[in-house]
């Protein structure tokens, strides 16, 4: 503390050096900002090696699953919906144009114009043809396309709505980070199409990438707007532009230096870190406002700016040091969260708080020391005249004594608030959905609503089934082959047992899934060299191996497909699931068409080879590659594509829970493991991690702050009192979230750290001053009078400046920014009220204990 005191003193004496040093630091760090690398991918909420994320990426690779942009075309006016020649012609044109966009995986694009139809071409004739190679000329033809598409389970509900009013185009893209650009290009194409159809574009990648783009716009608009309002409010309070420029500079310098450091150290700017400026600004301004408030109050009495600032710094240095330390601790605790962007966010906000403190105790005194007396003269004049300032002062002065008489009432009200908050907290719903990061009126939200109304769901999750041969089990084919060889040797033919053993040995190191293929290839090699007698035996061995190979292709077996079928039936019972698709659907559809389109044969063939031959027929279409989104070429892994109408974490969670319950009663075939993949699921995982991480961080920093308070006040009572405002504020804020039914999502989770950091500030200032004044006055009533002069004014000014200053965030089209704006205001209002009402009331009741113990 002595050191800090010296630093502040030194700054008052060497203002020029301080200014130069600050400028140098800001220029050096600020010069890094142009190197900014943006990362808007919520997937990065999980560490790259997080198991669920690894599985997700493996599934994407294995099944060639790409992130999807969904374009919906709706025609409500036409009696046939979109199934009229004009609308379909436009959809066709749109599809062809989308195929040409760079970054679109055109061979996997799903549209009426790009998929195959399998149907009856007459008795005994199976027909494979494009569903809509060219747009139809007549309404009858358009109707025929609709009827054909509705017979294809893979397409029905996905590419066209049941009522025929809407069709969709699923656009797979190479990289999520390209979605905003591609979506914008699609918008431009649509603008040139004409017609009465409505077009909607949605999909998680679009929501995420668009959010990123909007987010950076908001950084450019919201943060400066907040800065402007803070500036105006300070002007209202202090009436001295020269004076209030100082906190603005501190805020600007802090934000620039912190972001420069973050970028310079090579961190990407994620959704979370983009919020750092908005979080740092109020924190950076708070301390300066305390100093200016005191300075403005004391300067007219003392008259000398150097003496005044020195006195002010003496009063405030300790509380400022502790408020900065506690705020920083609150955010630094996020470093233990399991989510990398949250860690970066927490650590850099903590660093920013440290920088802000440093700038506040060096730059502010230096700046004030350099101000001319003429400029400060306004401060003197204004202080004398009647204006709002005295209104606030009068109100606070009047409030002070009442807290003494009404202390019991305040406690009762507080108890009620705590009880209601507890009830609210119990009702908190943990939920998130990137699409809901936009306001309800945003085109992405509208598209989301309309398309999920018409179709089976624009949110995707994938249930991945993998088959591993149980390890260590002796292979059945070994026994059979041994018999074949023995039998051959027995009847006097050549004995190939040794050769076989050598072969078997040679593939010992091959991975389990490939052993049979390797053996079969090796036996083929033997066949090439063998004479007729040997060849006959090798042929027999080959047959055994090939039979075993067929069996190893688990997802060709009717049993495994039936398991998938049952799983899908269960998935269908969850209301949010619009539809699920799998290889079983393909097999059943093709089987039906092979059997004259008879719906009774919408079933899985009785044998694995029957399934294989059904799939062989399917592969003779225009898009055989579609099969490999559902199956691996070794038939040992399969996936079920689950389409959901909502991307809410809770809804996804209900689906996974339901599957889990079903599996408990109906276990998967032996050796089959099930895992979830897909962005909708991944969001559940990181959110779960985050909520837990935040809760731990909050509890951890609660303890740390309490320990700090013990060190600061050296009194358990004061430390407990200091914890009171933040506890009540956090309780109230989260109670409110529960009561109004706002989902506990990413921004809210992060706000807990801010709440803790900011609401302890006021308590520290209040209690520190209470003690100092009581030491002088020696009496509680007069102490309260003193407290409700300058200290209360500084706290109230601060609360108003920050609460009102961040209201522009409410105008942002992004919900997380609204949330931050609203809760900053609420945090300020509540913690200010709790500090000024509850603390003196409690202190009144325990005055004796407080001021006899400790000091």
């Amino acid at each position, binding site marked *: 503390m002595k050191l800090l005191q010296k630093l502040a003193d030194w700054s008052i004496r060497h203002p020029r050096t301080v200014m130069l040093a600050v400028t140098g630091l800001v220029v050096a760090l600020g010069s890094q900002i142009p190197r900014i690398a943006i990362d808007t991918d919520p997937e990065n909420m999980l560490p790259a090696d997080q198991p669920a994320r690894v599985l997700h990426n493996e599934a994407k*690779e*294995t099944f*060639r699953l790409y992130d999807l942009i969904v374009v919906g075309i709706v025609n409500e006016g036409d009696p046939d919906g979109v199934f009229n020649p004009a609308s379909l012609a436009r959809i066709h044109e749109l599809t062809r144009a989308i195929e*040409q966009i760079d970054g679109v*995986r*055109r*061979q996997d694009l799903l549209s009426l114009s790009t998929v195959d139809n399998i149907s009856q*071409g*007459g008795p*005994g*004739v*199976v*027909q*494979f*043809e*494009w569903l809509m*190679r*060219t747009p139809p000329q007549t309404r009858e033809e358009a109707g025929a396309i609709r009827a054909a598409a509705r017979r294809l389970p893979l397409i029905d509900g996905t590419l066209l709505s049941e009522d025929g009013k809407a069709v969709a185009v699923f656009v797979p893209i190479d990289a999520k980070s390209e979605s905003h650009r591609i979506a914008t290009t699609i918008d431009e194409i649509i603008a040139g199409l004409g017609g009465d159809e409505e077009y909607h574009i949605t999909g998680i990648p679009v929501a995420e990438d668009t959010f990123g783009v909007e987010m950076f716009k908001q950084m450019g608009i919201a943060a400066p707007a907040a800065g402007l309002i803070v500036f105006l409010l300070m002007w209202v309070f202090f009436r001295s532009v020269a004076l209030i420029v100082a906190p603005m500079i501190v805020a600007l310098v802090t934000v620039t230096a912190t972001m420069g450091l973050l970028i310079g150290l090579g961190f990407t700017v994620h959704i979370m870190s983009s919020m750092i400026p908005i979080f740092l600004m109020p924190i950076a301004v708070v301390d300066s406002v305390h100093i200016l408030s005191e300075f403005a109050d004391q300067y007219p009495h003392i008259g000398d700016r150097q003496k005044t600032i020195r006195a002010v710094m003496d009063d405030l240095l300790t509380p400022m040091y502790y408020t900065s330390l506690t705020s920083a601790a609150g955010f630094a605790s996020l470093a233990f969260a399991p989510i990398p962007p949250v860690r970066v966010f927490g650590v850099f906000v903590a660093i920013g708080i440290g920088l802000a403190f440093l700038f506040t105790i060096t730059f502010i005194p230096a700046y004030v020391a350099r101000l001319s007396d003429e400029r400060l003269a306004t401060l003197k004049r204004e202080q004398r005249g009647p204006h709002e300032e005295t209104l606030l002062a009068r109100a606070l002065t009047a409030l002070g004594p009442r807290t003494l008489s009404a202390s019991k009432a305040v406690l009762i009200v507080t108890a009620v608030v705590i009880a209601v908050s507890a009830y609210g907290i119990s009702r908190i719903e943990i939920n998130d959905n990137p699409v809901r990061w936009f306001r309800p009126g945003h085109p992405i939200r509208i598209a989301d609503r309309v398309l999920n109304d018409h179709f089976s769901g624009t949110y995707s999750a994938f249930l991945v089934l993998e088959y591993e041969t149980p390890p260590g089990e002796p292979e059945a084919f070994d026994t059979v082959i041994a018999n074949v060889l023995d039998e051959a040797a027995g009847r006097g033919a050549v004995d190939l047992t040794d050769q076989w053993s050598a072969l078997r040995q040679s593939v010992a190191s091959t991975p389990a899934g490939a052993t049979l293929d390797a053996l079969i290839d090796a036996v*083929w*090699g033997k*066949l*090439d060299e063998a004479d007729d007698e040997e*060849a006959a035996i090798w*042929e027999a061995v080959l*047959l055994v191996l*090939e*039979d075993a*190979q*067929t069996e190893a*292709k688990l997802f*060709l077996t009717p049993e495994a497909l039936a398991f998938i079928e049952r799983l899908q039936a269960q998935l269908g019972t969850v209301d949010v699931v619009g539809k699920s698709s799998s290889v079983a659907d393909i097999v059943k559809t093709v*089987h039906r068409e*092979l*059997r004259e389109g008879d719906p009774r044969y919408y079933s899985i*063939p009785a*044998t*694995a*080879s*029957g*399934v*294989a*031959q*059904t*799939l*062989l*027929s399917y*592969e*003779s*279409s*225009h*898009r*055989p*590659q579609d*099969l*490999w989104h559902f199956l*691996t*070429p*070794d038939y040992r892994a399969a996936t079920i594509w689950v389409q959901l109408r909502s991307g809410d974490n809770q809804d996804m969670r209900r689906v996974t829970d339901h599957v889990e319950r079903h599996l408990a009663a109906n276990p998967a075939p032996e050796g089959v493991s099930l895992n979830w993949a897909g962005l909708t699921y991944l969001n559940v995982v990181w959110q779960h991690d985050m909520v837990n991480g935040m809760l731990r961080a909050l509890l951890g920093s609660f303890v740390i702050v309490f320990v700090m308070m013990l060190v600061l006040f050296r009194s358990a009572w004061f430390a407990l009192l200091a914890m009171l405002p933040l506890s009540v504020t956090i309780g109230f804020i989260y109670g409110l979230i529960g009561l109004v039914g706002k989902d506990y999502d990413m921004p809210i989770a992060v706000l807990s750290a801010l709440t803790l950091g900011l609401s302890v500030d006021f308590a520290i200032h209040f209690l520190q001053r209470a003690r100092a004044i009581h030491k002088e006055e020696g009496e509680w009533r007069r102490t309260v009078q003193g407290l409700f002069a300058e200290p209360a004014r500084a706290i109230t000014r601060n609360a108003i400046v920050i609460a009102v200053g961040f209201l522009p965030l409410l105008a942002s089209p992004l919900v997380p920014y609204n949330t931050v704006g609203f809760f900053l205001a609420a945090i300020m209002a509540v913690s200010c009220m709790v500090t000024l009402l509850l603390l003196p009331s409690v202190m009144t009741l325990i005055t004796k204990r407080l001021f006899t113990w400790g000091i």
Partner: protein
Amino acid sequence: MRYHRLPTMVAVTALTLTARPSIGQDLSDVDEIVQRANLATYYAGDDGRAGVRMTITDAQGRERIRQFAILRRDVADGGDQDYALLFSRPADVRNTVFLVTKHVGADDDRWLYLPSLDLVRRIAAGDRRTSFVGSHFVYEDVSGRGVEEDTHELVETTDAFYVVQNTPIDAGSVEFSSWTVWIDKDTFLPIKVEYVDEGGEVYRRIEALQVAEFGGHPTVTTMQVSDLRSGGTTVSEVRDVEYDLGIPESVFTERTLRSPPRQWFSVR
């Protein structure tokens, strides 16, 4: 049935693909070039037989095998043809039979027999650009694209090749906007084919990697098709090629579907 793998089998004159000076006079009539290429590629001998092994590799390098014996009989050179395919690998599609009567200038007749479902079905397709049994080849690559379906332009004559660009007359029936073929000046076999999409980009390529002569007929024995968009490839290896066996017409009738005559289908 006994199969011999390709490398041990190509003992016959393997023709290298490097440029060699042409013996005769260069042809300048593109229609003649195209006709001769069509005959050399699809009409060698009056009939023929081969064992084919297709290795389908996807972009991730995962392989699958399709193995079958193929029989062919020409009704007339450059005219109608019959094809019969009997699958042997993988084991789960063994004895599946595919029968085709190719009609020049009209839709082909295709039949499929699926033994495990005991089903004979005629297959009708709107076009010949459907996948050949899940490989990167399309049906048309196997049975030939009618020369009358494109306009042809001789764009270049190099030391070794006639380079012919072909533009479909009915653009709506195919997914490419043109295709260019490099025809060997001596054998008239297409050595490279590239398909160009509407954006002018080559998205698909077929290459003859190995050519050998059987009974006086140069034959492509290793052929690779690359899907440049997905990154997948299919390599087709041909072995036990024989021509002019005198395969009777009756082999190519519906009866073959359920009971393929072994003597004709057994590749040595």
